[in-house]
């Protein structure tokens, strides 16, 4: 009996992954990534002559749970038309029976890679605000993302920020019109662990319990989400992830650093992160707009709602905000004193 080598098995697996695009308007170009449900390829839309990304289900199944989930993800994306959310162009079934959807091909870098090139804190905060815009829009449409993490944010070549991978999304308002805040019974998503190139990286792994009710990514997942309390999830579970994302943008880690680590994070920003990632949902920001507003206030040199400043901190912030103006006035007064001292002796 002859066994196949690992490389031969790998080639066979790759060959089996390649979708049959005959009868569609797409021509396969390359494989981009693998997710929990399927593989993402680049393809050329031959009618419109543009590159698209195709998310193709792993197995041929037009009416199974996985197929329904992929279709559901495509419909969620189609309902969320926003510059910060990747648009869906098409959905269908391939000749080999696999369900797919076509979306915009985003040329850019994942946030965790892109951020290495962005040194300034205000620039990082402005990126965070754009993520908040997209998530706030989804919340307004009754959709929770539930897997916000740097690997699911893309930054395009012109600085456009796109929230990707809505495979774990939960619809609060089904249809999306079954009634405000009504939980969609089909919304519970059973996510398999994602395979990634860097499996040891905690930011890359989506976790699952035996019943599949825990989904998300350690470090970015709210405590209630980690408990599998899916029925009671609301916007505040995404706010927890946004808080962890903000901390990642500022410190390179989603978790709060221990005091011994001597975190150099500004007190106001640390307070925003801590409030967003509070263990109890009631202690978090009630909406994405609120966290966004606090970050904007910080950028404008104003006091943030999450942090009560001491008089000394207020004075420091006032000085930083009006530094040049204060220097000009000081220069004027100094010059006046010098004139008095030296011109009228």
């Amino acid at each position, binding site marked *: 009996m002859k066994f196949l080598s690992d490389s031969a098995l790998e080639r066979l697996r790759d060959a089996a992954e390649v979708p049959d695009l005959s009868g569609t308007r797409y021509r396969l170009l390359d494989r981009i990534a693998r997710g929990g449900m399927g593989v993402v390829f680049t393809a050329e839309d031959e009618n419109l002559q543009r590159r698209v990304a195709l998310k193709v289900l792993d197995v041929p199944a037009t009416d199974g749970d996985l197929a329904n989930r992929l279709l559901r993800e495509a419909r969620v994306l189609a309902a969320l038309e926003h510059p910060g959310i990747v648009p869906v162009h098409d959905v269908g079934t391939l000749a080999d029976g696999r369900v797919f959807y076509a979306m915009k091909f985003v040329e850019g870098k994942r946030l965790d890679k892109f951020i290495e090139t962005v040194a300034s804190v205000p620039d990082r905060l402005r990126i965070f605000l754009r993520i908040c815009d997209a998530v706030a829009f989804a919340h307004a449409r009754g959709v929770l993302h539930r897997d916000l993490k740097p690997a699911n944010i893309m930054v395009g070549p012109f600085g456009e920020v796109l929230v990707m991978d809505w495979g774990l999304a939960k619809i609060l308002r089904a249809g999306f019109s079954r009634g405000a805040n009504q939980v969609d019974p089909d919304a519970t998503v059973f996510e398999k662990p994602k395979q990634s190139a860097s499996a040891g990286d905690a930011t890359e792994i989506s976790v699952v319990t035996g019943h599949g009710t825990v989904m998300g990514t350690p470090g970015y997942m709210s405590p209630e989400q980690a408990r599998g309390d899916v029925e009671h999830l609301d916007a505040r579970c995404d706010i927890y992830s946004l808080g962890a994302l903000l901390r990642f943008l500022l410190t390179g880690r989603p978790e709060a650093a221990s005091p011994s680590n001597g975190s150099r994070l500004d007190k106001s920003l640390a307070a925003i992160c801590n409030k967003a990632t509070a263990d109890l949902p009631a202690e978090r920001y009630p909406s994405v707009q609120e966290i966004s507003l606090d970050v904007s206030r910080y950028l404008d040199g104003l006091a943030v709602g999450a942090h009560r400043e001491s008089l000394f901190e207020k004075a420091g912030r006032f000085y930083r905000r009006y530094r040049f103006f204060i220097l*000009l006035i000081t220069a004027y007064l100094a*010059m*006046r004193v010098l004139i*008095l001292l030296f011109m*009228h002796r």
Partner: protein
Amino acid sequence: MNKVLLGLLLGAVLGAIDGGSAWFTPAVRAQIVGIIFGSTFKGLIAGVAAGIFARKVNSVPLGILFGLAVGFVLAFIVAYLQHGYYLEIILPGSIVGMIVGYATQRYGATPAPATH
């Protein structure tokens, strides 16, 4: 606050303070009221000019330069009419112009575009 109004108020206040500082010069203390009025008026003109400039040109460095130039020219005219105290009048007047030029660019509100 809009740029012209901010320039007007700041120019007037700084001009009045600038004029009031003449009190420390005993030789001109008797004319202090006239000096304060004149200096306030000078500050008003510099402030309005800096405010109008800030509405047309959105640049902090150019705003500072413009304020400096206007402050210098106005202070020079005043010093010329006084036949003296050139440095004491021109130096503070120019810095007041710079302050007003900076403030109108940095802190003045841009008017909202008209809607139809």
